[in-house]
């Protein structure tokens, strides 16, 4: 994964993606030591801690996109609400977008703080069966910026996974920032201790988005993360007055449909633009509850159902093999 910058590697080089990267005896004096240590995979002791914490998580879904602003957080929030509608299910929503944490606002939890207990950090609960964690809860003002380089971001992500007392969880949804960088590598590495059902990849129809999303799909292949499917968001707009459709983000190269065909991944569904979606996100309300009649709501519900079915089909037996 993290490649060395170049220059001769020591004879006993442990490999730049190994747990010992930058830390082994052979690394001393190697020009790449700093790079490798900064991006080192978690060591076995850390992984074991994570494994015990995440043991009680049945299904994990990552929400990814190469492109920003396509609706990852919006989708993550609605997926969480959709799954938590079944009161018998325990849902956890983890926001690892450290620089731009949107989830607290979207879930109506702005201003909430994280509490510590003997068993770790408590998630902030929207409903009894829907808990949320985000760096947003650790910031004291809406103007506070998290101006951190990669290693510090990785540290917080590890803490979120290791120190949050999620309890027994049926679905852990992880909302990510756009890209294929520190946050994504780290979360995949840390989650390798548990079973990840797969990734849901969000895009919008235009090529400018798809070109980044193809990279994200390649990232998933590289790190062996299964892809549950792709959601095409902002797929057309119906004017509320004349009811005619406009393609504000035009699918000039065939949209997600063509991309999915070419790359052999599932298209989970297409969701049209609806001004109510943004409004609900701003107000911290569930769009699914506020606008049950919207075509976007039925699209979202169908997609959520398909994700649930995918997870159910890939259900592991109770005893996880390490």
């Amino acid at each position, binding site marked *: 994964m993290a490649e060395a910058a170049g220059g001769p590697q020591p004879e006993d080089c442990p490999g730049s993606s190994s747990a010992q990267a930058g830390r082994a005896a052979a690394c001393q004096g190697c020009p790449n030591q700093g790079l490798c240590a900064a991006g080192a995979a978690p060591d076995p002791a850390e992984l074991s801690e994570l494994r015990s914490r995440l043991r009680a998580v049945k299904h994990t879904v990552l929400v990814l996109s190469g492109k920003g602003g396509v609706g990852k957080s919006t989708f993550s929030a609605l997926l969480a609400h959709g799954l938590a509608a079944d009161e018998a299910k325990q849902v956890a929503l983890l926001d690892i977008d450290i620089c731009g944490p949107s989830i607290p606002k979207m879930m109506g939890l702005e201003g909430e703080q994280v509490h510590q207990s003997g068993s770790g950090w408590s998630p902030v609960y929207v409903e009894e069966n829907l808990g949320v964690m985000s760096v947003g809860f650790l910031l004291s003002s809406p103007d506070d910026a998290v101006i951190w380089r990669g290693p510090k971001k990785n540290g917080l992500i590890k803490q979120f996974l290791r120190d949050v007392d999620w309890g027994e969880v049926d679905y852990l949804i992880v909302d990510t920032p756009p890209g294929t960088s520190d946050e994504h590598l780290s979360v995949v590495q840390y989650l390798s201790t548990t079973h990840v059902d797969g990734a849901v990849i969000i895009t919008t129809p235009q090529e400018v988005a798809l070109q980044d999303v193809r990279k994200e799909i390649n990232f998933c292949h590289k790190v062996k993360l299964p892809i549950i499917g792709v959601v095409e968001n902002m797929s057309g707009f119906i*004017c*509320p007055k004349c009811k005619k459709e406009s393609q*504000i983000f035009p699918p000039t190269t065939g949209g997600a449909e063509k991309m999915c065909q070419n790359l052999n991944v599932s298209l989970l569904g297409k969701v049209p633009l609806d001004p109510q979606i943004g409004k609900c*996100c701003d107000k911290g309300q569930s769009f699914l509850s506020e606008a049950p009649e919207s075509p976007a709501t039925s699209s979202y519900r169908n997609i959520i159902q398909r994700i649930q079915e995918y997870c159910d089909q890939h259900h592991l037996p109770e005893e996880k093999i390490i």
Partner: protein
Amino acid sequence: ERTNLAGVRHILLVLSGKGGVGKSTISTQLALALRHSGRRVGIMDVDLCGPSIPRMFRVQDSDVHQCDSGWVPVYVDQDKSISLMSIGFLLEKPDDAVVWRGPKKNALIKQFVADVAWGDLDFLIVDTPPGTSDEHISTVEALRPHKLLGAILVTTPQAVSVGDVRRELTFCKKTGLRVLGIVENMSGFVCPHCSECTNIFSKGGGEELAKHAGVPFLGCVPLDAQLSQSLEEGRDFIQDFPKSPAFPALARIAQQILDGTSQQS
């Protein structure tokens, strides 16, 4: 020793805490508008994971060549009035993911700043990825010794975006980066069939933020299907669609930047 940025009169960053608000769009349209007013413009694309700039000028298949002073930027046309540098030109295959951690990203950004032979430019626009992390810290650090005019912040109208852009304003304050102004993008959509305006992503948040933060408000740019189409095709929207809804606002942004720099000198 003359640096590769010695011939660049003004450097400006296009930032947003939020992804997908139109940083690359505003960067390209600003470059085109400045070109149409007779300026020479460069764009440095430091979004290493999601480089959008090459396709927006239809030069995504171009290669980067070396010269005595370093890397030759990619020229958009024979005119050589717009030049570009992006990781997009350095990838073997366009779908290759750039899966790099911070240190490697920082190293390439330093190279973009030091090793690209920009020559004489009136403006160098730096397009950035969303956030306040490695790319942003490294870019500001590397550009600090040069003629850094300031930053344009782009947001969409809704509170979720504005919430992230507030943090970007803090980044600017903490790094001593002057805020040239805020652009409220995707501000309303006028139906091409019946002219009804719908505020798909709400309205007014960018203007309010500018007022609250005491920074200039550069204007509202509406959603414009012809603009999206032009970006897809790598067309010059400013030249080809002067009557389109987004044109007046984009032209006004460029004018305000020009007015700002003429006041300076």
